[in-house]
């Protein structure tokens, strides 16, 4: 299935939205104006975008501690996102959730999650709902490589297969779980090796190539929509920054040249080169997109800055319906 120019440009735009949102959030954090922990998505943009562009608004996704990218790619409102990260009343969670719990139910984004692996069972529940109601919606569970060592992931993967649910498992293999290289936490190199243990197909894809991700995701999603059950898409990718925050080079747990080598394969820049090469877009057009999104992010930041913190009487609101 050929992608239209429009689709390609939409993916380009979406990746830039993530990149700039994250870089900006990281910078604001450094000024001390943004509370809590920020697990930034920079470097992995092709995954969220490639997958979410294969989804409809009414499809569901669950996410992780590294969740901003998924929400942006699903169509998240940058202003409400930035406001949430700053703990403001206008944020997606009224300031109560923050980075690790950002979500937008109207976009089918069922939440970032602070507990490794815990989103996958929830995606299975959304998939169950879709099958139960006989809709053709699917659900996608995003998770990291290191998260596949936790029990909840395993139970979710098997449950989806046993109940034959329309769920796509998307692994973002960035080679690390916090400060531990994943090859010290498991002896297999590829997460797809686990798919067979649940009886679902698995495919490895270059997670720095948004078109490749999109293609694999499209196939997996179509399969799920057709009622043919779950599958796993493993995207080999890399986070540019530290586990949290924006520190980049000089971290003792991973070599600088590894970081630099991955940056050579930057998902946005390599994609831009292709767009230009194939005549889909001019440099000027792409630059205009950057500028436009820069402005949108600035505006989001301004919105967040201008927004009030939640009032103290909001403390107990929302604990129960």
């Amino acid at each position, binding site marked *: 299935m050929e992608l239209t120019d429009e689709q390609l440009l939409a993916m380009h735009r979406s990746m830039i939205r993530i990149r700039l949102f994250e870089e900006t959030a990281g910078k604001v954090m450094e000024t001390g104006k943004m509370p809590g922990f920020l697990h930034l998505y920079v470097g992995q943009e092709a995954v969220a975008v490639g997958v979410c562009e294969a989804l409809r608004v009414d499809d569901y996704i669950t996410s992780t501690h590294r969740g901003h990218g998924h929400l942006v790619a699903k169509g998240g409102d940058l202003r409400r996102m930035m406001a949430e990260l700053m703990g403001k009343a206008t944020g997606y969670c009224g*300031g109560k959730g923050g980075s690790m*719990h950002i979500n937008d139910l109207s976009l089918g984004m069922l939440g970032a999650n602070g*507990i490794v692996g815990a989103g996958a*069972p929830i995606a299975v*529940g959304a998939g*169950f709902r879709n099958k*139960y*109601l006989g809709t053709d919606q699917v659900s996608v569970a995003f998770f990291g490589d290191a998260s596949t060592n936790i029990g909840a992931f395993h139970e*979710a993967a098997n449950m989806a297969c046993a109940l034959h649910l329309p769920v796509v498992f998307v692994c973002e293999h960035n080679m690390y779980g916090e400060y531990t290289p994943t090859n010290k936490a498991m002896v297999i190199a590829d997460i797809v090796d686990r798919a067979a243990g649940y009886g679902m197909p698995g495919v490895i894809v270059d997670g720095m190539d948004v078109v490749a991700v999109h293609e694999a995701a499209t196939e997996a999603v179509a399969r799920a929509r057709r009622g043919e059950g779950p599958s796993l898409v493993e995207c080999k990718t890399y986070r540019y920054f530290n586990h949290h925050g924006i520190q980049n080079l000089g971290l003792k747990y991973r070599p600088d040249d590894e970081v630099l080598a991955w940056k050579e394969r930057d998902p946005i820049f390599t994609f831009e080169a292709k767009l230009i090469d194939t005549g889909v877009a001019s440099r000027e057009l792409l630059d205009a997109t950057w500028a436009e999104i820069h402005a949108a992010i600035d505006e989001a930041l301004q919105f967040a800055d201008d927004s009030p913190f939640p009032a103290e009487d909001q403390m107990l609101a*929302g604990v129960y319906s």
Partner: protein
Amino acid sequence: MSAADVPLPDPGEREITYVAAFIEAVKLEMAADPDVFIAGEDVGAHGGVFHTFDGVQTQFGERRAVDTPISEQAIIGLGIGAAVTGLRPIVDLMFMDFVLVAADQIANQAAKLKYMFGGQAKLPLTITTVGGAGLSAAAQHSQSLEALFCHIPGIKVVFPSNPYDVKGLMAASVREDNPVLFVLHKRMLGQRGAVPVERYEIPLGQARISRPGSDVTLVSWGKTAADSLVAAEQLAGEGIDVEVVDLRTLSPLDIGTVVESVRRTNRVVVAHEAVRFGGFGAEVAAQIQEEAFDYLDAPVGRVAAPFSPVPFTPALETRYVPDPARIAAGVRAAVARPLLGR
């Protein structure tokens, strides 16, 4: 008209068991609302190892009565994902002890989702389970762990003591838009009681004075609330007139009914089956003394299990679980306690 004002149906004359009342509630909710389904281990074809879902799959089919793999975390997750996307799931954990296997999904996910999402989500999820000792099922199949989840904001905890309450509270739990942990007691399943045929709801968060009395208040829930009535009858023979308060819902706690009673009787004992140390009785006791301090003629007494895992052997288990005799002893002590003991 608040829920509290809705008149409850008369129990009528039909007697059914505690477990039958539960099944009746489940079936009525499923019949009334196509979004209600059940899922769990052996709940479908087998009807549940305690027969708590007998006949549900026969009546509603495999689509709505789902056997799952042995995956407690994913069972709760399935419920959360389905609930937040619009269904009204009933998910089952075979033994209450298994809440510990799924504790993250219950306490970190289900209970907190709505709050973390800024209050926008609805999470109509009922988690059913069977707790308590008395079958020599030993330390990992006999616990009463309700206190753990009472301490978690965002989930409600219900523990009924009789068939009438089971049916009405289960109906209310399924219709509730917040997660509910609904606990049945395994030794109560065969207990019979009068239960109306029609559907009805007992609002969550309302205690019930199951026996009025004037000398001393006895607060409990679950099987212990049933045993408390037995103890009260014994004590009546001794001239002690006990008012029994059956909490029914532990979280939210209807402390008002308890305090109102204590202000009349001036003496109170809280009884439960869980171990005493750190049990929910402590919260009830702490609130009573906070709110009725000047009315108390004796400390709030507690009757509960000793601080050990549940022993297997009946020789110890029967002495471990508070029974009517031990409850009565606790009440007697509270009544006998001199006003000033210094």
